[in-house]
């Protein structure tokens, strides 16, 4: 389902996860974050596809950076950052969500 800001639900989650990372977000960390906190299984295929889409939309940008970490077997790391357009889209989504949630009763939240 597309959110009103033109973002799919999973796209929004990926975007937010990148923003949440305190330092140096990259794919493995985003995936871990989503699996731990969004309570869903994330396949690599879906994650990379979403990153491709967000890049195409200009909401994220990335560059390859040489990595010294031995566990990466000499492969570089993809440093991902959210572009100003991405930040704006996330904010727009949040406003829309807030508007729609605020009109409701406690929404089944048990006391």
């Amino acid at each position, binding site marked *: 389902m597309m959110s009103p800001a033109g973002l799919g639900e999973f796209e929004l989650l990926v975007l937010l996860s990148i923003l949440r990372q305190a330092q140096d977000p*990259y*794919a493995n960390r985003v995936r871990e974050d989503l699996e731990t906190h969004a309570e869903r299984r994330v*396949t*690599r*295929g*879906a994650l990379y596809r979403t990153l491709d889409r967000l890049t195409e939309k200009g909401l994220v940008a990335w560059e390859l950076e040489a990595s010294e970490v031995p*566990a990466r*077997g000499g492969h*570089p790391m993809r440093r991902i950052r959210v572009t100003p357009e991405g930040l704006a889209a996330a904010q727009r989504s949040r406003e829309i969500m807030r508007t729609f949630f605020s009109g409701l009763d406690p929404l089944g939240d048990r006391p």
Partner: protein
Amino acid sequence: MNDPVPSPPSLPRRLLESALAQDPAAPAILGDLHEEFVGRWERRGPTRARLWYVREATLLAVSRLAHAPSAPSNGGLVAIATPLMQDVAYAARSLRSNPSFVLLTAAIVGLGVGALTAAYSVVKPLLVAPLPFEDPGQLVWIQNEAVPGENSLSAVTSRTSNLVDFRERARSFEGITGYNAFSEQTVYTLTGSGEPEPLRGFGVAHDFLDVLGIEPTAGRGFSAAEGRWGGPGAVLLDYGFWQRRFAGDPGVVGTALTLNGTPREVVGILPEGFDFASIFRPGARVDLLVPFPIAPETDRWGNTAFFIGRLRDDASPESAQAELQGLVASLQQDQPDRWGLGAEIIPLRTHVAAPVRSSLLILLGAAAAVLLIVCVNVSNMLLARVPGRSREMAVRAALGASRGRMIRQLLLESTGTAMLGALLGAGLAWVVVGFVSGADGIQVPMLDQIRVDGSALGIAAAAALATGLLVGLIPALHVAGGGEAGILRSGGRGHSGSRGSRRLREALVVAELALACVLLVAGGLLLRSFQAVLDVELGFEPARTVAWQLNPSRDFETLEETSNFYRLAADRVAEVPGVEAVGLSDALPLGRNRTWGFQVVGGDPELSETTGGFYPHLVDDGYLPSMGIEVVEGRNFGSWDIQGSAPVVLMNASGATALFPDGSALGQRILTGGEGTEWEVVGVVEDVRHLSPELDPGVQVYFPVTQLWDYGTLDLLVRTSVPEDVIVPGVATALQEVDPAMPVQDHWTLEGQLREVNSSRRFILQVLVAFAGVALILAALGIYGVLAVSVAERGPEISIRMALGASGPDVVKRVLGRTLALAAAGIVVGTAISLGLSDLLRSLLFGVEATDWVTFGGIWLLLFGVAVFSAAVPATRAARVRGIRALRVE
């Protein structure tokens, strides 16, 4: 951890690299996977990390290819693989949406593929793979020229002097060796360490291993000195025996084993891959090899040996045969008195496979027929789904999919399903083959060698692939056959049940029934043969018997001493509670196999030649009652028939008739044995099937063990009124009282022996009946499927008929009529094929003709019955069609 910098499996990594060839983020993605792989390696260990990587990289590669942009910029794997991967992904989704159909189809394919894979695995060591020897194509079997119809070992074995002459004078061979075919008459009792144990050994010429090209696992083969008469005692241990008795201790080489009271040096251990018994004496057990002297002393024993030759590179079996024939003729000319000369050359592999070759070919053919039936069945199931799929394909075509692409799509689905079936089939084959190779006492050569190996899995995969393409093609052509607009307009039912498609499905059912008919007829004929074998009048009563081979721990000097020992043993055993009768014999039926020549005193001197000698039995006076063999005329042996009294024999009824057609055999004399003794016939007894239930009894002569000392050991037969496991300990104790060092743990029953003799017949029968059963079930499913779909499609037509006055029974009659027509067509075709193949089957039949009308008739009835049974549900459903409802659906 074992490895400080683990690296992921290279094949999936390369696959992923190719799939990511167009992706600028590829190095980082590979790094992401690498990083997690290392983490898992440390947390969960190498195996699980590697498995994870294989799965993850493959899934990711498929996902990237399936979702790559539709027009890749340049060629390579991506250009070819992307649309294919998209189709694969689509096929997978389509299969997942209908799991029960896919599983059913895969299970049916699995049955067929499993049958073929298992059959191939059984056949392979005998008919496909080379024998486990060095350069096995150069090895030939050399036997004596058999008299047609002559089945005894003595008729096809040779004297050792022949081997001496062949070795010396034949130029076609690099080497000729041999073994003693009668070795089973000697049991080697191992004493000195723990319980005395009876061991089975075969005597081989000293160069046996050299000629066959077998390297011992440890130690060496026999030396020429050990191969001489009276040479140093030596023994080679079978690998399995070495493992069992000595826990694979190489230190046993060079030590001495006490066998029958004589020490023999263990000179070597046979390699694991060479099991003498499985190749040269299927169904038996061989624990050790001992030297068989090729010497004048063994030559005097007569025809005892089989030879194996290794041809020179420039010789062929034919040229060698010609040379040996010439040699035999010239030897005979030089020594006119020499007897037992002859040579017939057979490639070793042909000889080893010969007893079961036609069985195995039939097995393979039957498996192929099952797979064909499976193809037909699955094809039919897919055809039944054509109407439903047509609409889906019409939509795809309307959206721009090409016909080729749609056919590929459907073929991917059918091959995908078939591959799943291949997995199930390989599993099934693995179970079946494990069961068969572990079975004891089946007389099929090299049974222990059969396994589902790489080539069998390749056969499974190839069969599944072919099945997938074959069964998918017709439905795919049908579905993708165009007419989209019409299908869409017709409101979604697709062009259901066109006449052509129904005809095609019916033709497939006829094919299925025909194949099932062929398998059932073959199975039925073999079943009748097996019944006939079981019904043969054996001439003795195998039930409630237990036998022991007695191997006294000491040697005897005189016949009197020997017979006293055995007499004492038999008397002691007779006192054991539960023992009804005790008998002694040197050759119980269904075991040993030899013939002696003879002359009738005052009769035709050629008679021995024409009757092929006689089967000698050396027995005591308790033997006939214990075996349940009736005396027809005259008397049994008595306690007075001893050394020094008049030499007497008994003869079987057929023998008596053949030798003395003009009158009674009683009082007649025959001349046999080296000393020219004349033996008087004092009794005629019932015929006994000595070699196997299927072979004529021939001439059999019984000698008293108290008058003729021509045996190494005797078998003790006990007829009992209590179960085997109750009688065995009592008899064992009684025997050990007579000779404490005599091993008594090995015993057998005549019923067991009979089962073993019938084992290969039973084996092929069981397999074929199982195949035929599967074929019948599949054929029934096929009929049901076709009629059910046809009734469903023709609901409106049936309802109109009923509205116009047709009754329920009329409708049932129409459906059943159609069914019977299909069944009849299948039966006619199947019967014709069966008659055409009857020559192939004839060699396996016994007591029944390949054109046995009872079998054919029974199978026809069975097929008609099954056809009607399968049609019952669709027919009653048709009769319940209510006019209005069916029309409303329309």
